[in-house]
């Protein structure tokens, strides 16, 4: 993508540092750094790790373990958002998956057998695929706006989960699920390993093949992509199926964590956390270019915040407040207007061409990388960055 032969590329006078400063991911990384630094000072012991029975323990491990379900969903959400879409139903899919799995385990003749677990996992994942296909159908074939199409399942999904569990919280014991909830693989929590593998697979699948570019093309300009022969419809359909699939897997994780399927509360608002993670990571809700690295950093920021608040002994209620404060700061730093203003202040005399966003350039070659003027996105107020809409 961006790594073109250096020789063919007339570098802007600004250079690497400046390019990095324009990258939205950088600000997310910086925010995470500040957060960790804060912990190093305020919570001595936050970074301490110990190995017990060959397993790794510590606050950092908790962060990566607890982030697993959100991150898993956020990876799928990144691809959906890259196609200009959004999926609000992942929380509901998560609840359905967990409910289906545990209802099967509870009702089985031999609840603790491996075969029961395999059946439960298989059916739950299949349910995820069906639900994803439904969303994909509504968006890509029927042409309903993604936010509306997935709102249908977001609303109906918990009802379906309730029907599956008869309105009860289903508890069950099964060694496979216990392992999924609390087990270790290669010294790391199982969920971390699964999430890392999915992340790796998606990275390889989209960036080593042409899928990533085709997804971005569909997100930037669907009409142009279609005329260029891109199977825009299949690609859109596929990303919705994929995000529902990972939501189903996340549902198994969340349910296994507490050994109980709660149709009402499991994964409540997880769709918002996943969307936040994607957006903090610098992927625009307007679609197009996406960054999986950014999404990982975004999810880590959210989880570190939560863990920080908890380890400081503050009540739960503060978590949301802290999240809001940190998130708005990251968004402000990412907002093109704020960044342009910061740059102007830093170099008061230099009327660099990069600083005059959107002004008509001189004829001939356009300066290689002018600051992107804020793109008005349907449904957002022009002048605010698209991302800020999520905060509501």
């Amino acid at each position, binding site marked *: 993508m961006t790594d073109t032969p250096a020789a063919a*590329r007339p570098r802007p006078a600004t250079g690497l540092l400046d390019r990095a400063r324009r990258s939205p991911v950088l600000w997310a990384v910086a925010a995470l750094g500040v957060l960790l630094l804060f912990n190093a000072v305020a919570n001595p012991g936050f970074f301490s790790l110990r190995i017990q029975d060959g397993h790794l323990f510590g606050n950092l491990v908790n962060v990566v373990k607890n982030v697993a379900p959100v991150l898993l969903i956020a990876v799928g959400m990144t691809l959906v958002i890259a196609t200009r879409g959004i999926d609000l139903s992942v929380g509901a899919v998560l609840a359905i998956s967990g409910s289906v799995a545990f209802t099967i385990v509870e009702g089985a003749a031999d609840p603790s057998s491996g075969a029961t677990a395999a059946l439960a996992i298989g059916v739950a994942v299949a349910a995820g695929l069906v639900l994803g296909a439904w969303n994909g159908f509504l968006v890509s074939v029927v042409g309903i706006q993604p936010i509306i199409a997935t709102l249908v399942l977001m609303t109906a999904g918990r009802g379906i989960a309730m029907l599956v569990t008869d309105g009860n919280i289903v508890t069950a014991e099964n060694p496979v699920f216990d392992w999924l909830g609390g087990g270790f693989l290669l010294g790391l929590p199982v969920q971390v390993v699964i999430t890392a593998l999915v992340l790796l697979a998606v990275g390889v699948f989209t960036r080593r093949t*042409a*899928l990533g570019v085709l997804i971005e093309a569909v997100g930037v300009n669907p009409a142009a992509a279609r*005329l260029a022969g891109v199977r825009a419809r299949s690609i859109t359909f596929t990303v919705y199926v994929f995000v529902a699939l990972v939501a189903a897997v996340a549902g198994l994780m969340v349910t296994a964590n507490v050994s109980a399927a709660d149709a009402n509360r499991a994964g409540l608002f997880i769709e918002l956390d996943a969307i936040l993670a994607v957006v903090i990571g610098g992927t625009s809700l307007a679609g197009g*270019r996406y960054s999986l690295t950014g999404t990982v950093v975004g999810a880590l920021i959210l989880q570190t915040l939560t863990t920080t608040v908890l380890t400081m002994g503050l009540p739960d209620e503060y978590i949301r407040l802290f999240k809001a404060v940190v998130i708005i700061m990251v968004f402000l730093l990412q907002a093109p207007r704020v960044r342009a203003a910061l740059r102007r202040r830093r170099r008061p005399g230099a009327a660099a061409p990069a600083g005059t966003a959107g002004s*008509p350039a001189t004829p001939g070659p356009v300066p*290689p990388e002018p600051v992107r003027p804020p793109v008005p996105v349907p449904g957002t107020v022009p002048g605010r960055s698209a991302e800020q809409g999520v905060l509501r």
Partner: protein
Amino acid sequence: MSPAPATEVPAGPPAASPASEPVVAMTGITIQFPGVKALDDVSLRLFPGEVHALMGENGAGKSTLIKALTGVYPYDAGTVTLAGVEQRFTSPADAQAAGISTVYQEVNLCPNLTVTENIVLGREPRRRGSIDKRASRERARRVLAELHLDIDPRSVLGSHPIAVQQLVAIARAVDTDARVLVLDEPTSSLDAGEVAELFRVVRSLRERGVAILFVSHFLEQVYEISDRMTVLRNGRLVGEHRTADLPRTELVRAMIGRELATLEDLERAAPRPVEDGAVPRLSASGLGRRGAVEPADVAVHAGRVVGLAGLLGSGRTELTRLLFGADRATAGRVEVDGRPVRLRSPRSAIAQGIAFLSEDRKGEGVVGDLTVRDNVLLALQARRGWLRPIPRKAGDEMVARYIRALDVRPADPGALLRNLSGGNQQKVLLARWLLTEPRLLLLDEPTRGIDIGAKAQIQELVARLASEGMSVVFVSAELEEVLRICDSVVVLRDRHVVADLDASDTSLDGVVDLIARGDTRD
């Protein structure tokens, strides 16, 4: 042919109105967009009590001129005066407050509010701090009655057809005491009866002394309603005329006839003969789409360039889209190399070796947030499928080769396409298609809105490709360009193919005649 008419001595004020002072005078308006001059020294005068038509093909600068007048675009040079006082509007609201109202093709009112609310929106009569609904309704009723419009002011605007909504938009303009009313393509989606009603209202406004700027690409309507007209081409003023003094053929010639300079020396390629009995590379018979283009026959032989000529809305673009499967035909058959094929989607056309450059470069071609490299490789990659990525090195080489061959500037494969000028974007899109090694290239307005240098390069490229055996369908609003580049010319008018001519024994005047009247059927 005679040299292009220079900017003519402006025709005087309309006979109907004794006023000699224009209410609006735009002088020397120039707007520079990156890489292209959208308007170059354009002037326009509107007199009270006249309907003034603004004429020109797509990309001629009509919309830009209107946007300069109404404060949407800032202009780089020139002046705008309203009733003799120089103005510089910074927003449409600004212009509206000064008495210039605009009604667009897509009505820009609130469909969920009532007719009354739309008419008085922003200027509601108040009583004790709240909106006086009764007074609002009375005002709306009065305005509607003045225009003899039978519309219930309490009804919701969105419940009415577009035609009625436009009339309400005009009523709103009357309520603001507009001195100038701009109607931007108001009739495109109206039927004959609705147009008649609209014109009745326009005439009654004219009698009240309102100056009306009317934009339409329907010649009949322009001749029916307008008193004078200003013609633009390629961002320049061609002339200002009394409608009655300008025959239709002259108008068409002014709109599309002749590039002003620079391109004339480009040599006309020797005509490529078709051997008797040769199977055309593509032949369509009875190909049409309901509501877009009537069934038509087109044949393109190897190494030939076929031009489609006609005005906007004549069906030239619609026919081209059918040949690519971008829209689906409702009638007719298509054969490629004598074998029947079905063009159900762009993909199926691409599989037949067909490539298509859309006239809507920004909307349907440019993938702005991706790099030049990704854009060039897009169609080839899409055909290979995502599982077979183009190897990085091979991709780099192909992109570098085409950047060089087509002289894309800046020659930076990593630049985002949105940052290139229109002409260079067009070259990148051409490269995208040439990379798929098509056998038939459909070019819809490939040279519109791009600077003159890029234009010549693209024309030369087309000639070279044809001499190497590629078949090309070339659609352009510029007749001169079509005649220079093409071997044969298919002329369309009112969604019908009216002639299929050999370019070598066709004159500009002959084609202009066909486009304007169309009474010489094949």
